[in-house]
């Protein structure tokens, strides 16, 4: 067990604990904050995996922008808690059974063909996964998808504005 593996185990414990806490906390604000912790733990893990650029994107976009949006909507709606009665009694046990079944199935598919733990045997050079290399790939071979991404973001922005605005025009048309 080398240092990297110990760091991985610590980060994995943080990620799992924060994910479970997100599921069980009754307050949606706590859920959001636990999810931020989870994203940051995974981002540090990306740093260990030669993915510095993705780690920083994860922190700025996921843990930053997206979670701020979540917290903003939670506080805007005042929807931290739901105290209503559960409508379907059998939902929780059924979800637990299905979740365990899915876990077993995914573990089987993933590890059936694998013969023991594998890691990249060759020592990866410092250039692999550097922001320079990723950026060069992004702006050469994948420049068209990159530009399409901007169109997707624009469409999402317009869609969000259209969905969330006050419908003054339609209200005015009503007799």
């Amino acid at each position, binding site marked *: 067990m080398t240092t990297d593996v110990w760091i991985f185990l610590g980060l994995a414990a943080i990620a799992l604990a924060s994910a479970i806490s997100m599921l069980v906390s009754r307050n949606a604000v706590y*859920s959001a904050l636990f999810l931020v912790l989870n994203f940051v733990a995974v981002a540090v893990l990306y740093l260990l995996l030669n993915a510095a650029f993705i780690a920083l994107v994860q922190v700025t976009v996921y843990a930053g922008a997206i979670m701020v949006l979540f917290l903003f909507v939670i506080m805007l709606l005042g929807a931290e808690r739901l105290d209503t009665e559960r409508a379907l009694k059998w939902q929780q046990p059924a979800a637990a059974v299905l979740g365990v079944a899915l876990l077993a199935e995914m573990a089987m598919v993933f590890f059936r063909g694998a013969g023991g733990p594998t890691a990249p045997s060759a020592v990866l050079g410092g250039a692999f*996964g550097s922001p320079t290399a990723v950026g060069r790939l992004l702006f050469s071979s994948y420049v068209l998808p990159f530009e399409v991404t901007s169109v997707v973001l624009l469409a999402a922005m317009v869609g969000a504005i259209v969905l969330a605005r006050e419908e003054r025009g339609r209200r005015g048309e009503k007799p």
Partner: protein
Amino acid sequence: MSIPTDYLLALSVVLFVLGILGVLVRRNAIVVFMSIELMLNAANLALIAFARQAQDLIGQVLVFFVIAVAAAEVAVGLALIVTIFKSKHSIDIDQVSGLRG
């Protein structure tokens, strides 16, 4: 020795299943949405692990696009939740049963 890919895949699988459980169990629409983000995150972790295993940067580029699309998805999804809240005055997903036959 660096981190074995199998460990990363195991973490990814467990995080994904936790996300699935969140979608199935929780009724707060915002928490359900956050669970979907958790699943995307687990898939990203698997992609990064495979990119390192194959020593190919395409996996990292794909993760970049996944994150960008997730940002767009969150913007539209939260706008939908706000709209649902305006009409139903609740974000309990059990209340949103207008399509039940």
